[in-house]
């Protein structure tokens, strides 16, 4: 194991140098070292692993990548504003290239209220004691697999949003993560909402060169305190050469609300674990997924709605449209612990296939250990119907207009659940742009 690691850019010397240069609290360095050991020890996942059965990463070569290089200020000029910010009055924003922070802003008013928002690796130096109980400690398991361990050991940059007790942040905050050609992004997102706080974070990722290779090995932790409300939007819009591995987990506490919307458009291959844990009585989570795949993309999303406490609600709706030879795998699970009575759990995945060659695998699952619960799931896979297209065409629409309209209609149900207009518009337009000329 160690031998293979030494050949990669993620080798012991590079790690030691990385760590020595960081000037971080000791507990964090210790955590990194432990994760690094784990990274060296764990094998690369293979198709023998149940989780990776449908996701082939034999072509992924970790040795092509290494620790992110220093960001150049010139990259900021290339950075676009992002799709989610259009027409939005934001309370703050961050931009990073290859997980190196380039710009960060937060309104004075929010700063005065004690809100922290910016690069996690900078803020953790100053607020180590505040963050220590949260960072890679409660939600994402740094030792879960090789990618989780690599991330936990080597993450840099990243984003922190911390909202103190009772503070309600009205304006959305915006985070843009960029990858350079051949770049590596190891950003960590940590959101902590203390009791009764509320906030909206619009996060998005993109590549400076939409076709270049790249690696994102990331983690997202959303810690929603009692009676807090978090709206989190995460648009994954990497270029088509990017490998995307991520562990994403939310903890939703008593009577708290989480609305988590993911848009998935980019990457060559994505393997994501999205996990929502309802840990306090009366917690509520809504999860929305909008996916569009094309070319030879492979997008694999494993979702878990874990009801650990009673009287919680979780409602997941994932919709994916597939073009060309692309493939989407969705594997969903609702897990209800023995004590989680009065659980209301729902999961649904709809796929719309635009070409014969595309393939959608949709695998819902329930694991229920309480007896007084309501859990339902559903999955559908359909094709754009020639009769629908013809019907639209007899009303004067071209074939492309018809397909775009039918696809937009397919996403309407999930779009209706997204309260932020810029997000609805950005997703709708991005998808419409991707729909190819059909004949």
């Amino acid at each position, binding site marked *: 194991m160690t031998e293979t690691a030494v050949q990669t850019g993620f080798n012991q010397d590079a790690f030691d140098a990385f760590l020595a240069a960081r000037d971080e609290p000791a507990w964090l360095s210790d955590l990194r070292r432990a994760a690094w050991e784990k990274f060296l020890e764990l094998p690369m996942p293979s198709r023998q692993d149940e989780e990776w059965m449908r996701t082939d990463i034999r072509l992924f070569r970790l040795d092509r990548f290494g620790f992110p290089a220093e960001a150049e200020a010139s990259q900021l000029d290339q950075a676009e504003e992002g799709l989610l910010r259009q027409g939005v009055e934001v309370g703050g924003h961050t931009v990073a290239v290859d997980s190196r922070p380039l710009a960060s802003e937060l309104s004075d008013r929010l700063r005065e209220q004690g809100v922290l928002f910016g690069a996690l690796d900078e803020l953790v130096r100053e607020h180590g004691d505040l963050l220590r109980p949260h960072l890679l400690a409660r939600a994402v398991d740094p030792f879960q697999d090789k990618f989780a361990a690599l991330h936990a050991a080597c993450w840099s940059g990243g984003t922190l949003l911390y909202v103190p007790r009772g503070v309600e942040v009205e304006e959305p905050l915006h985070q843009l993560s960029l990858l350079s050609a051949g770049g590596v992004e190891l950003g960590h997102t940590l959101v902590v909402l203390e009791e009764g706080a509320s906030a909206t974070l619009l996060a998005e990722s993109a590549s400076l060169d939409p076709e270049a290779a790249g690696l994102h090995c990331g983690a997202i932790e959303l810690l929603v305190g009692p009676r807090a409300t978090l709206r989190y939007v995460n648009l994954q819009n990497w270029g088509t050469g990017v490998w995307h591995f991520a562990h994403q987990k939310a903890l939703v506490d008593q009577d708290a609300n989480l609305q988590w919307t993911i848009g998935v458009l980019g990457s060559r291959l994505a393997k994501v674990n999205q996990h929502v844990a309802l840990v306090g009585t009366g917690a509520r989570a809504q999860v929305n997924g909008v996916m569009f795949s094309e070319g030879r993309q492979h997008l694999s999303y494993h979702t878990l709605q874990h009801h650990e406490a009673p009287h919680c609600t979780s409602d997941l709706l994932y919709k994916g449209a597939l073009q060309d030879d692309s493939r989407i795998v969705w594997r969903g699970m609702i897990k209800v612990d023995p004590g989680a009575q009065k659980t209301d759990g729902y999961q649904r995945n709809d796929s719309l296939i635009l070409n014969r060659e595309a393939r959608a695998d949709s695998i819902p699952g329930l694991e229920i250990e309480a007896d007084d619960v309501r859990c339902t799931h559903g999955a559908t896979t359909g094709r754009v119907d020639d009769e629908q297209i013809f019907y639209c065409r*007899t009303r*004067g629409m071209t074939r492309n207009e018809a397909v775009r309209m039918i696809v937009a209609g*397919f996403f309407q149900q999930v779009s209706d659940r997204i309260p932020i207009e810029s997000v609805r518009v950005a997703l709708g337009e991005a998808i419409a742009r991707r729909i190819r000329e059909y004949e």
Partner: protein
Amino acid sequence: MIAPNTNRTNESMSNTETLKITDLHVAVEGKPILCGASLTLRRGETHALMGPNGSGKSTLGLAVMGHPAYEVTSGSVELDGVDLLELDPDERARAGVFMAFQRPMAIPGVKMADFLRHATTNVRQPDRKEGEELIPMREFRKELRGKMEQLKIDPEFARRYVNDGFSGGEMKRAEILQLAMLQPKFAILDETDSGLDADAVKLASASIAEIRGGEMGILIITHHERLLEHNRPDVTHVMLGGRIVETGGPELAEELHRDGFDRVRADHPKAAAQEAELEKLQKEEAVG
């Protein structure tokens, strides 16, 4: 009142424009369904197309609209001298032909108003390219509301998804609304009365008469007299076994409503044999 269709047609030209179907042969999956159908519809005229189930009435309409599964093996369809068969279905719509479907398709998630705004813009601006401006939302809404009021359609309809979860009757009303908005030169109404109760058919009949004014040529496919109440046919065609076997005046429609198709079958044994043949094929397919 519905404004007369002035934006497309020169008044003096209007009555000379024709939808001319000549000796149309149509096959589905290689199977001949239509074996020679001819009719000429002028603007302002009403024609009734009658015939037993399975005789090929819908096939005629779908072939005229350019359904890809309906292969025209010979014959022609011309709109005022332009060869419609050379055009894509959307180009035919923009040229001014419309069909109200016997079985309209649902487009889940697409609001009736958005669908119609798109359709109306394209049909009114036949040269519009994808991505170019649509009719301004406010202007369109106002017009749509007006039409819906006039046709006694619940305004809620505009916000519902196209034909999604509609009852049979609602679908037919939605087709009539589309006819009203698109104001084609020629319209084929395929059983726009089926699934409606007597009062609703009456309303549909009156609505169609009002929408068309004196400008539209319409071909009404129907089994019922009621739809023709306000739309007395100038010409009646009878279809049997994939052929138009008789063409007459309004009295022919009345006779068929009264007496059925037995006399027609007796008078046209070849078409009747073809009808029996098609039915047999159908049954075999259903069994096999």
